[in-house]
């Protein structure tokens, strides 16, 4: 029994030591993502808004490394999946031709971004933050008309400025995160700049 207590005390000391001595954190998070390509400024791409409807479909993962626990800076990466879709009867104008009919339009975006964030406020409190994401976007645009489907997909370089807030949820290991990102993927493969807003909410934990 004494041995067991000793072992537990050693493990406790080791854990406490490794945590405090390093004084750093990895925060992980999952977010529910919503997106919009209209009704907000600066959202058009060179082809106009491919999809106008607001989207409630999306999911994301976050990882943030805080070198100085409770400090103001973090570095990390994020991956997410945003799905926008729309059913429309809008007439499509092409060079020398016009097309009408029910169209199902889909916009699938997978941003893979590295980021840096700066946090306001102090440790343990509500932390508003600003950040910058840089990386690649895989974007597929697809239109189904009648039984015909046309699509293009490309890897884009892009960036996304971000504003958000982190709210502690009573325990030091768990927090609520909410943010807005303006995703800007530069033109690639004949597809113009793709821009859309992301509104994300989820949990962070460490």
């Amino acid at each position, binding site marked *: 029994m004494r041995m067991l207590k000793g072992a537990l005390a050693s493990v406790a000391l080791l*854990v406490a030591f490794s945590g405090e001595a390093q004084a*750093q954190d990895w925060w992980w*998070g999952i977010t529910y993502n919503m997106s919009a390509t209209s009704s907000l400024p600066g959202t058009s791409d060179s082809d106009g808004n491919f999809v106008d409807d607001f989207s409630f479909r999306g999911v994301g993962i976050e*990882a943030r490394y805080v070198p100085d626990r409770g400090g103001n800076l973090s570095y990390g990466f994020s991956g997410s999946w945003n799905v926008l879709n729309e059913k429309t009867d809008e007439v499509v104008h092409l060079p020398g031709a016009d097309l*009408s*009919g029910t169209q199902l339009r889909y916009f699938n975006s997978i941003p893979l971004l590295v980021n840096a964030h700066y946090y306001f406020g102090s440790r343990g409190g509500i932390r508003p933050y600003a950040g910058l994401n840089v990386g690649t976007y895989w974007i597929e645009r697809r239109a189904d008309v*009648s039984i015909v489907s046309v699509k293009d997909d490309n890897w884009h370089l892009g960036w996304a400025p971000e504003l958000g807030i982190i709210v502690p949820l009573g325990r030091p290991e768990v927090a609520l995160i909410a943010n807005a990102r303006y995703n800007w993927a530069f033109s690639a493969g004949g597809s113009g700049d793709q821009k859309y807003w992301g509104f994300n909410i989820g949990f962070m934990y*460490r």
Partner: protein
Amino acid sequence: MGQWMTRGRPLATRAGIAIVATVALGGLAACYPGDISSIQETQVVITAYDKEFDYSAQQTYAIPDTVVEVCDSENLNPGLPINCDDDSRVDYNHANDAAFVARVRQNMNALGYTEVDWETVNENNLPDVALIMMVTVNRWTAYTYWGCGGYWGWWGWYPPGWGCGYPGYSTTSWDQGTLYTDMLYPDGASNETIPSVWTGAINGVLSNSSNTNRDLALSGIDQAFAQSKDYLMVP
């Protein structure tokens, strides 16, 4: 070690939780939500025009009373892909020809054109444009192969979910029709070919109901003219 371990779970575990939760949530976000929900929504109307042609100079037209099956004639070319494969061709019922021609006539008149009776058309009495209606109907079949016909756990020694009874597939077939209205320009004829200066093509999956198909085609004809009226309208 310390860098990868803080209070709580190991880094790999925490990352795993995030990834699994993300994938699970991702299941709610299908790549292609929404669907075509009716025969009407399969219909598409395509109009093509000649950007160099002076539509404003045309004032008269003529149209025959019949709709021609494209695949029955080697002299017709609506300028769009056509499948005349004997295996997929479906006989076209000409019962609605008069209704289709009448609807084209109605739209042309509404745009300000004057009709020249087709029976009176000859080399000395040519209309500015002639309208020819054509049709194709094809049957399409899609096969979906499932590979494994079910019977989960049929073989007792397989883990649940691995039993494979028989290869399974399902088939879906549908008839698809295209109704073309071509506007020909007789004065531009050369080498025994009369150029087409406008095409309206209505394409869709056909219903079992003849009335539904007729109504869809008629609304498609209206749409073809509606989306072209800016340049077809007689000034």
